[in-house]
Each structure stands twice: as C-alpha cells, then as structure tokens.
C-alpha cells in the first residue's frame, strides 16, 4: 500500500517534470528556429519592409480609385443609353502602352553602357530601373517587355536576337531624379559594378524627351490559354 502510493507520487512528479521539459524544449526550439518569414527579420529590415508595403499599398489604392471611376463611367453610359466607345478606346490605349505594344515617349534617363558587361549585369540594370519606377524601357531600339532578357557572353550580348555591340544605350521613361538617384546611390548598381565587373562603365544622363518603339515580340501566347 505504502509502495503503491509512493510510485503514484513518483509518476505524478515525473509526469509534471516531463510536461515542463516538453514545453521548454519547444520554446527553446522555436526561439532558435525563429519561425519562418517576418519573425526572422531585424527591426531595421522590418522598418524598410513596412515602408515598401506602405508605398505599394498607396499605388494599389490609387489603382482601385481609377478602376472605380472607370466602372462608374461605364455604368453611367449604360444607364443613359449612350455609347461607351471612347471609354473602351482609352482603356485599350492605356493597357497597350503599359504592356509595350505601342510606342511611348516621355522624360527619363539614358544609361550608356560600355566595357565587358555580363548578361546578368544588364538584366540587373533592367531590374534596378523597374524597381526605381521606370514605366517603359528599351535597349537600343528594342523595347523591353515581360520576357525580354539580355543573353550571351560578355562582349557578345544580344537582346531579342539583336546583337548589342561593344557599347549600347538603355533608355528608361520615368522620374529622371528618382531613376538617377537609384542607379548612382551608394550601393547602387553603378558602384556595385565598379567592384564586381571592373572595366564596365555606366553613364547615367537625365533626358527630357525619350521615344521608345513598340515591341516586335508577339505577345499572343501559343502554349498558354486563358483560364476560364
């Protein structure tokens, strides 16, 4: 009887300690693994992330307002029984310009590239320009659309099968001040390439009027179909 009681007390004690042990092991593991995603970021990175999300959400809100106005106009035309053809044409023009199907003009920067630039350097430059808010891009006379990639060995680069030669110009339409600042800042692509690809030179010039051609690429998919 006495030994039975003692073994029960023992079981309770061991059970309790095992529970606490299990709990603490999990806490410890979680603390070390840090979970996934946001919990892994430092306070500084989180602050930068928040600024980026804020900026993007403002753009998305503005798109929502634009679309709401467009829907209201189409609805009003329907109620009044008037033609909405002007609205359809504006919509079409806006999408075609954005996608690179029509030529565009506007302010921006020209980046003159020379030296032994690699394909990945050139694709980095396009990515940096888009990140800085470029609205339309061209390399030489080739409009850059989704899927336009610079390829080939350094010195023998080409884009959409057009050889680029020893030096070429990348044109970007957008805010010239923001585009210049993004490329030439400390840690920006101009200073990065000076370290990683010596001999490569990028000269950034603000331009008041750039004209970029439409893409030659067929953007009608052959393998992909709209999902209904």
């Amino acid at each position, binding site marked *: 009887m006495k030994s039975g009681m003692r073994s029960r007390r023992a079981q309770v004690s061991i059970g309790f300690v095992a529970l606490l042990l299990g709990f603490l092991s999990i806490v410890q593991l979680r603390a070390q693994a840090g979970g996934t995603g946001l919990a892994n970021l430092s306070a500084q990175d989180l602050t930068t992330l928040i600024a980026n999300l804020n900026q993007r959400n403002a753009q998305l809100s503005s798109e929502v307002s634009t679309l709401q106005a467009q829907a209201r106009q189409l609805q009003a035309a329907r109620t009044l029984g008037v*033609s909405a053809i002007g609205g359809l044409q504006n919509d079409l023009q806006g999408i075609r310009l954005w996608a690179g199907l029509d030529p565009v003009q506007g302010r921006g920067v020209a980046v003159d590239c020379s030296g032994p630039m690699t394909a990945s350097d050139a694709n980095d430059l396009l990515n940096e320009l888009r990140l800085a808010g470029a609205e339309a891009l061209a390399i030489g006379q080739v409009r850059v659309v989704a899927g336009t990639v610079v390829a080939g060995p350094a010195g023998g680069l080409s884009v959409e099968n057009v050889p680029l030669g020893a030096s070429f110009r990348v044109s970007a339409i957008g805010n010239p001040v923001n585009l210049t600042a993004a490329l030439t800042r400390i840690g920006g692509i101009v200073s990065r390439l000076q370290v990683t690809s010596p001999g490569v030179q990028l000269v950034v010039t603000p331009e008041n009027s750039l004209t970029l051609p439409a893409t030659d690429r067929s953007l009608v998919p052959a393998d992909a179909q709209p999902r209904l």
Partner: protein
Amino acid sequence: MTGFVDRARRIPSWQVTLAGALLVLGFLIVAQAGAGPARVQYTTQERPPLVETATELQNQQDALKAQILDLRAQIEQLEATSSGNSALVTSLNDQLQQARIAAGLVDLQGPGVVVQLEDSTQQVPPGAAPGDYLVSSSDILAVVDELWLDGAEAIAVNGERITVTSALTDIGSSILLNGAYLQPPYQIVAIGPKDLYSRLTSSANFARFVQARVEAFGIRLGAGSLDKAVVPAYAGGVALTYAHPVAASPAPTQTTATAAP
C-alpha cells in the same frame, strides 16, 4: 564503503529518473534565459509591433489586390456588353482581350514547369557570409530569366505575376516582387512549350546556377514538369505618369475612333 554502495542501491529508480529529468530541465532553463538577452535590446521592445504592422499591411495589400481583380472583372463585363456600334464594340473588346493577355492581366494555364527554391540547411562555416546560404532575389531572377530564354510565355513567383514593370529586391533575408513580400519557399511557375523542363535543365545557365548555388552553398532546388500549370493575373496598377502615347504615330484603333459617332 560497502555501506555507501548499499545506500546507493536502495535509492528507488524513479528518483534517479527524476534527477536526470531535473538536470535536463535546469540546462534548458539556463539555455532559454541565456538565449534572450543576447539580442540587442530594441529588438525585444520594438519588433512585435513592427511584425504586427507589417502583417496588417500585408493583409491590407491582399484585400486591395482582390478588389482590383474584382473591379477589372466588373469593367470587362460592362465593356463586353456596352452599347454603341456593335461591330466596333465587338472589335474593341477583342482587342482589349488580346491586350489584357499580352499585359498579364488574365489568368493563364497550359503546360509548364515549377521550380522551387529554399534556403540552405547547411551550417554556415566560420568566416563565411550567411547571406550566401539564403535564396536571394538574384537567384530568383536568374531562374526567371532562363525560363524566358527557354520560351516561357507566362511566369509567376508565389502567385505574383511577372509583368513588364515587375522588379525583385532583397530586404534583409526576405524578397519582394511587385512590392509584395514573398514567404519562402519560393515557387516559380512558368507556362511554355511542352519541352520547357528539358530546355531549362539542359541549359548552360541552369547548370551554372546549380553549380554556383546548389553545389557550393546547399540552396535547395526542386524542379518538375507540369501538365497544367496555372499562372494568375497581375493584381496591380497599370497607370502611367511619365510615359505618353507618341503623337506622330496614331494607334491602329484611333482611325476607327474618329469614324464612330
């Protein structure tokens, strides 16, 4: 001497077990206490609200994207059934549909591939750069660019469509695409020719990528062919502020526009 051994033998086994467990417990408590204050103090005070704010903004972003897709569907419906010269309305709607597909504003499906990238699980050797063992935006860009060169027609990363204005960037160990935070693992889905998988995996760029990132740093890579890949529409803005139509070359629809009342 023998008295001690006898006494030790008389200790019940549960006490030995309990002592062992308590020893581990003590070790864990100390490890736990030691793990905390090693971080800089501000992280414990400021991080939770920052994580909360970032999570809220992400939720807000998801809601805005859903609203954009919903409004686009409404507009498409209104445009398709709008009044006016019916031949012209039909023609404009056909052109709008083509332009939307070209711009990435329509969900697409077709044969394709999926490539998954994950951070390395290897121990970072002393003196090595920990960033080399994480998937970076340039890793994703390298795979995406090779897929385009192999003939891909549409690509999305974690559901974010790659469009004409899409940019990738790193913030610390995290990656943003189209201003959206991508949660690892990173899944790149592409639609393209039926042999896209073999084109990708037999390319020189892909071999270089595997050597430089998978073999050297243990970045985890998986790739497979898909019979039916789905690439969602771009849920973002298409507004232009600095880019304008070229006055001298009218768009093909503008001539028909003047003919319409």
